[in-house]
């Protein structure tokens, strides 16, 4: 069915990027790769704690 359409394009959130991370103190000199990795991990942690909060509150 729509599988072919679904993989045609990936729509991604763009807010959290290198520039965004650099706006915080201490991240000014982080490379693009480092920023990407840290953002990904922070997002994972946020996901876990938010879902936990939602499940328990």
């Amino acid at each position: 069915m729509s599988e072919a359409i679904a993989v045609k394009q990936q729509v991604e959130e763009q807010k959290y990027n290198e520039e965004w991370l650099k706006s915080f103190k201490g991240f000014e000199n982080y490379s693009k790769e480092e920023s990407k990795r840290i953002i990904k991990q922070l997002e994972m942690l946020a996901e876990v704690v938010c879902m936990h909060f939602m499940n328990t509150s």
Partner: protein
Amino acid sequence: MKDLSVFKQFAKPSKSIQFKTDGKAVIYTRVSTKEQAENNASLETQLKYCKELAVKKGIEVLEHFGGTYESAKSDERKQFQKMLTYVKRRKDIGYIIVYSYDRFSRTGANGAYISDQLKKQGIVTISATQEVDTSTSAGSFQQNLYYMFSQFDNELRRDKSVSGMQERLRKGYYIGPLPFGYTNLNPGNGKTPNYVINDQGKLLQKAFLLKAKSNLANSEIVKKFKSKGLNITEKKFSKYLRNPFYCGMLISTLLPDEILKGKQPPLVSEDVFLKINNILYSRPQGHVYNSEDEHLPLKTFIKSFECKTPYTGYLVRSKNLYYYKNRRKGSKENRSAKKLHQTFIDFLNDYKLQDEKLVEPLKEIITDKFIELNSESIEDAKRIEADIENLQKRLERLEERFVFEEITKPQYDKFKQKLELEKREFESKKLNFKFNSSNLKKAVDKALDYALNLPSLWESGNVETKRALQYMVFPEGIYYDFKNHRVRTFRVNSIFSAIASISGEMSGNKKENYHSNNDNSLEVESERIELSSKRANSSLSTCLVSI
């Protein structure tokens, strides 16, 4: 010539079909569609003709079957099967009377086969309008031709109808009952449909958007929207999310491999639909945890240091206690789940966010995540706040009008009471919202606390949270040195690090080589912690913790 009658007893019995010419009859009538059945004219006419034939032939009619709509495209018809069972059971039935042979069957060869089987039992199918003598070969052939022609006619009609439907689809009009959430304001044959999104559709639209934004579980979204009046099951919601009709497309089995633009207003944009489907197709099927998993969250995550095989678990039913066990054949590595969990909690206690500077960006991500997850509630809360403000203004205006004697005291009292009651209702509704703007901050702080206190998060979380946390902090799991009662991990997520008691001196090493520092830490914490191995990159560290 001798009289041969004496040999009659030796004659072969007749193999020809013995028709029950003195038998009784049943009548079978049918129409194809509900509309025809409701109109009833055709059914009445069929019955009338069948009865007339029975009278003409002097056959007693015992029962009437059908009298409703059932398509003869298949012979698995309820009334038809009921009739066949009836005539096969009764021994005195000799005839099935139908208005025409296409009433009996339109399946061609299959219809002829059924008729033939009945004939072998002495039951003849006769038509009130197509009289044939089925006792002769020519008559049987003619009857079969009627069946074949009925099927041919059916297929011709089908072809015509399919072409019409394909044409309609190509024009962008949906065939069949409209999908959930849509209404046709101009229904009827030959009319140009006017599809609109109804109230349920508007709620479904919000559910789609929430799915795209938050990737919440379908069950959560269905639950959330049920309270708002969206009556769909999780299964249905999952089906809708995959139906491109909702982003303005048309797909149909009548036009295989084709995707067309429909005339319906899209519920969501193509981008949103694609985003949802990317989520749905890219996400592996969620693991369903059973009650054993709840008690053994470290199962497969913890591995034997000796042989690297994962630990599994079991329940000692007599004591109702869970144990972890190494999978290796002949292994005697068994450890009480309670003890191993405590060990893991202690181990986790030694880890925290690597750097204070991570807190601020994490806080912002958590805030955004909460807003995404609760956007519906937040919007509702905002709406209610606006309603309360509006009611307050109306109350003030009422008072003003009373002061300036524009309204009487009874009028003032009456409306004041009404408005205050409304305001109270809104205020109590507002209290039910978990995430209005004021307590969002509290929620974020609480979530942040969890992020900064991993043992507490692990302890209070369900099995899903526990496992997500475990693998996030220690992506490759942990190794358990059973002999020496120690836990070891080779890889720690780079945003976490061992707390000062373990790694205080690590930070001083610019090359991030923990090896030498570990030696020092060993001297300090030799009873409890041993750090070893060179850290290959910033995301790698090795700890050996005694238990």
